[in-house]
């Protein structure tokens, strides 16, 4: 049942520059199964984005490997889509909502009907049906991020990688977008790797939470979130188990910040 999808093995990233080298990631290893929703949390500046870029094939790791379906990632893989934090810089302002969603499909040889169906479906999935002809800059931040998610959905990836996607939107919009991610996972069986600095968010969304140490980074803890798959902003967050998990992750992140946790190597 649990089929391996993504494997990160002893990943290490050192940034070389004229002023010396900085070790951003020391040694990260974790696995992710098909159909899982895994959240990655860690103190700020712990190299979450670096890790994500290595996984997405946008950055070459100094050592270690990332494998998707057993194949080593050396360039952006076909079966992965990335949703960036900065939706304002990730969407192309000269394209309409439809044009942006169509972007990853343009160079794929698809029949026109099929392409239209995919675009409709993706916009439907994020609740933006009927917004085709708007431009991104005419929409609110939350809606722009929905467009970015629709674009990723239209690409039809096996795994959706999201880099702090809701960091720049207000709390209410954020709750709606979290439920959207849950819905994509539940209804479409999408595998999602969700990077966040928000502890509540990681517990609410994830089936597993991977806690990273501060930089140079390693995996401090890998926690299974044993909450029911049906989650609700009010009742789930009020569960004693949610509070327990949240407190646990919070303590781990605090330890990571203070650099107390010691790697068992």
């Amino acid at each position: 049942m649990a089929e391996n999808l993504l494997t990160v093995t002893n990943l290490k990233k050192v940034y070389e520059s004229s002023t010396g080298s900085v070790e951003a990631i020391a040694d990260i290893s974790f696995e992710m199964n098909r159909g899982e929703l895994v959240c990655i949390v860690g103190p700020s500046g712990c190299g979450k984005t670096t890790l994500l870029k290595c996984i997405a094939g946008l950055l070459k790791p100094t050592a270690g490997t990332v494998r998707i379906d057993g194949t080593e990632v050396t360039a952006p893989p076909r079966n992965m889509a990335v949703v960036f934090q900065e939706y304002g810089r990730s969407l192309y302002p000269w394209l309409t909502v439809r044009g942006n969603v169509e972007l990853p499909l343009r160079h794929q040889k698809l029949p026109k009907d099929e392409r239209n169906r995919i675009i409709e479906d993706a916009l439907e999935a994020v609740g933006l049906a009927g917004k085709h002809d708007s431009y991104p800059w005419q929409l609110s931040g939350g809606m722009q991020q929905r467009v970015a998610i629709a674009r990723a959905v239209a690409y039809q990836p096996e795994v959706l990688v999201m880099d702090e996607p809701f960091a720049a939107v207000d709390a209410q919009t954020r709750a709606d977008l979290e439920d959207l991610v849950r819905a994509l996972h539940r209804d479409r069986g999408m595998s999602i790797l969700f990077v966040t600095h928000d502890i509540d968010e990681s517990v609410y969304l994830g089936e597993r939470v991977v806690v990273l140490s501060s930089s140079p980074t390693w995996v401090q803890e890998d926690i299974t979130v044993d909450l029911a798959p049906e989650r609700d902003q009010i009742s789930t967050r009020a569960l004693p188990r949610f509070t327990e998990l949240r407190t646990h992750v919070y303590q781990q992140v605090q330890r990571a910040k203070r650099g107390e946790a010691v790697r068992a190597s």
Partner: protein
Amino acid sequence: MSVVNTVKVPKTRRGKRSLWVRMGESTLYAFGLPLILIGLWAVWATATSPKFFPTPAELAEAFVDTWVGKSFFEDVVPSLTRLGVGIIASIAVGIAVGTLVGLSRVLRELVEPIFEFFRAIPPPVMIPVITVILGATDSTKVIIIVLGAVWPVLLNTIDGVRGTDSVMKETARSFRITPIQRLWSLVLPAAMPRIMTGIRQAMSIALILMVISEMSNTSAGLGNRIVYFQRNYLVAEMWSGIALLGLVGVLLALIFGIVERRMLRWYHGVKETERG
């Protein structure tokens, strides 16, 4: 799915009557000052009858006599054709070379010193050289125009292409968009605001060089006529040529404005949203 609301984009939507009022206002603004100046000039020229300045009426008469009819086809049309060809060639060469150089760091470091050298040469000094090679032909004049007008397009394109947002580039990479697709759907649109700035500068340089390229070695063209009238003390005719050049400049600016607003609708929209 919850209901989300759209940010209101500022639109200048007003009543029908106020549209007419506004159109009247803008017409008044556009023509008000020129009309006042023409009025002052008419009073001054009639009162003092200066030697080197015709009255508005004389100028208008000379304008019609000089440029309407045969001369329109023999002087004005060829001049404007060379101007148009020169501008289009400058834009094409500037964008093509600028994109290549902007995309490649190696190429950029290789050609930048050469660009600095050639850019420093004033195009009019090349007139004798190119005339020796190609003769007093249309090609010579077009080349002179391009030698000056290509630079703002070229340099702005390089900067625009270089400045493509890193997240936008990563987005294209992560969706495995092909290089040619990337050029059309990312690099060129992103550089377009800068390219347009370059084109605007190129147009005024092109107009200047069109006139200069016609001032020697030719028997026709706007620049040639103006020099001819000057040498024969045809003061009103000379001024009418200068007025015509001004009108050509206004026309170019109008065409540019229309094209720019169409192509950079998104850019103005983003700017307007940022201003709130």
